[in-house]
């Protein structure tokens, strides 16, 4: 079958068909990205925390902008080459375009990767600390867990004496993990008491399903779970049947009355059912003891810790003492008091006082030192701005003042400036740092970055890597750039198809291929167009 209007325009639209199609698609894309950009504006205007403006390293974004603009030019050239019937030129330009797409994605991957390995924590008083977590060490050697992996110094450690599982909700991999952790600590998890009850209607009510002392296993939990589900189904059916007959009775005894008038009088007598030995025993939870009590490590996101009792996300209750489980930063990249200052202003307090009374400044010598240093820098900046721009005649205030970021955020570049006489980094180090963040090893001077920065668990309000979970800025950043990245991949695949499989079409009908490349190019320009907005909005504002 011949496809119509691939080269010649249709009379009514004046265009070949695929061009109409791509513009319809681009119109829908405009609305899709428009939705995300408006979400960005909405999130930014409504943010109840200081928006992290100009927080991303500019250089990778700038290079990516150049790469995309360059590829936009080459894709036009590729199309023009086809129109002029120069196959070799088309190959070269299209090859450059696809190389640019690959380069873009590699840079994007580096950027994402750096964020996913970068830790942030918000303390209870809204101080934010950023950096990299360390691993547990003993006598200079890394401590390995039972999997042979290094242990991140961000684990919740509990000296557990008892575990209570939800028979229906327990997460199997976590149960297995608990078993192996107990083995590793030379402890055993055993059933605390006999699991017994009524398993059939009219039967004895002390039928033992599992004996006290049986070791924890998935098979054991499955057995109890099965008994529980059987009992629940049985009891549910009994209650439903009872309710149905009660309703029938109430309806016949009170003709003409509405359902809602009768509802409060219609009930199932559960107690009577139980006394008649009709109900079976449900086992919604099952308790184990840890013998002897042993230390278990949990990832912070999996557990809600308490002094004597903690709970996993799968409703497993852990009885036992919470051990000191500090969060230890191997290196700190930034100390940010902006959120704390904002909260202080909201409460009508002096933000500087709030910072100076913050837990971090009070308890960490380095933080105190850095804060004092930063205060002096801000004072210098204030004086310089006053000298350069003067005072506003109407308000009597200086025309230009340091920003909140300058006042309250001390980041790694400040740490570098603070440690006087430090190796400021040869060109290569400085460029690498623009992509990967501070190069702790490349900068030789000691005490540039605070090491082994310990934060007690009770001071931690929320911790996360720089993922969408950290705040709405990163959520919308990953949403928009991720979606854009998918478009880059999709566009590159289509253009690569024309490059590698287009020769046959070129030989049979070169104009057809030219039109296809034009349409693919239109999509590619659109991808560039989106990035033209993404770059200033996320990197520079």
């Amino acid at each position: 079958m011949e496809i119509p209007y691939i080269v010649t325009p249709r009379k009514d639209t004046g265009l070949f068909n695929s061009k109409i199609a791509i513009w319809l698609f681009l119109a829908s894309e405009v609305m899709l990205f428009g939705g995300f950009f408006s979400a960005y504006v909405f999130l930014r205007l409504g943010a109840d925390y200081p928006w992290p403006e100009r927080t991303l390293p500019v250089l990778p974004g700038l290079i990516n902008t150049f790469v995309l603009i360059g590829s936009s030019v080459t894709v036009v050239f590729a199309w023009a080459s086809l129109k002029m019937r120069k196959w070799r030129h088309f190959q070269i330009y299209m090859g450059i375009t696809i190389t640019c797409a690959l380069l873009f994605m590699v840079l994007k991957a580096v950027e994402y990767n750096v964020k996913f390995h970068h830790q942030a924590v918000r303390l209870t008083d809204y101080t934010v600390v950023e950096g990299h977590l360390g691993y547990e060490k003993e006598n200079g050697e890394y401590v390995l867990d039972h999997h042979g992996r290094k242990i991140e110094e961000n684990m919740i450690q509990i000296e557990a004496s008892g575990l209570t599982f939800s028979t229906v909700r327990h997460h199997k991999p976590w149960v297995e993990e608990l078993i192996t952790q107990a083995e590793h600590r030379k402890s055993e998890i055993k059933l605390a008491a006999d699991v017994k009850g009524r398993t059939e209607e009219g039967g004895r009510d002390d039928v033992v399903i599992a004996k006290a002392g049986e070791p924890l296993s998935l098979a054991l939990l499955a057995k109890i779970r099965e008994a529980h589900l059987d009992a629940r189904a049985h009891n549910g059916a009994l209650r439903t049947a009872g309710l149905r007959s009660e309703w029938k009775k109430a309806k016949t005894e009170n003709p003409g009355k509405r359902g809602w008038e009768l509802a409060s009088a219609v009930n199932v007598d559960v107690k009577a059912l139980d006394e008649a030995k009709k109900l079976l025993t449900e086992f919604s939870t099952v308790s184990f003891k840890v013998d002897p009590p042993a230390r278990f490590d949990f990832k912070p996101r999996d557990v809600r810790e308490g002094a004597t009792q903690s709970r996993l996300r799968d409703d497993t209750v852990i009885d036992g003492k919470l051990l000191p489980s500090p969060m230890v930063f191997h290196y700190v990249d930034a100390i940010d008091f902006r959120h704390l200052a904002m909260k202080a202003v909201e409460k009508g307090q002096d933000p500087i006082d709030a910072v100076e009374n913050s837990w971090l400044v009070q308890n960490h010598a380095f933080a105190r030192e850095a804060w004092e240093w930063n205060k002096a820098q801000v004072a210098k900046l204030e004086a310089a701005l006053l000298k350069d721009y003067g005072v506003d005649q109407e308000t009597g205030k200086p025309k230009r003042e340091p920003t909140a970021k300058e006042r309250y955020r001390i980041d790694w570049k400040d740490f570098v400036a603070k440690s006087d006489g430090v190796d400021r980094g040869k060109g290569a180090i400085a460029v690498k740092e623009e992509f990967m963040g501070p190069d702790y090893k490349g900068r030789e001077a000691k005490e540039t970055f605070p090491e082994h920065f310990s934060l007690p668990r009770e001071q931690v309000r929320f911790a996360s890597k720089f993922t969408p979970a950290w705040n709405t800025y990163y959520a919308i950043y990953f949403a928009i750039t991720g979606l854009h990245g998918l478009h880059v991949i999709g566009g590159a695949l289509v253009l690569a198809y024309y490059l590698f499989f287009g020769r046959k079409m070129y030989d049979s009908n070169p104009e057809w291929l030219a039109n296809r490349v034009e349409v693919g190019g239109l999509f590619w320009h659109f991808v560039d167009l989106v990035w033209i907005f993404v770059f200033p909005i996320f990197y520079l504002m």
Partner: protein
Amino acid sequence: MADTPEAIRKSIRTYLLIGGILFAGTIITVMVATVPALDIGHHGFDVWDAILGLAIAATKATLVAAVFMHLNHEKKTVYWIFGSGLFFVFWLFALIGLAKKDPIHDPFFFGSKSTTPAHMTTPTRR
């Protein structure tokens, strides 16, 4: 319309020129955002920086759309299709204004004493 090989050969220079302008525009955007001497408005980022940055971005986007995507000499059908997409995006942004101007203050969420949350009454200017 730049469809004949001769016309295309002529427009190659235009494409190069536009590419150059796009590169230059990007450098200007970065410079006004990072070089203190070029900072307009207040010190640091503020509404003027946003307006300037977005104005440059919009100019660049217009150039890409007009020249690379040939919107400067397209058929009416394309304008209608693309325009309708832009129309909806415009109203989507207008909705934000509406949401800011007429917010929902839920006393259950924000507490019965204050109907307006503190951060909404604080002037947003930094």
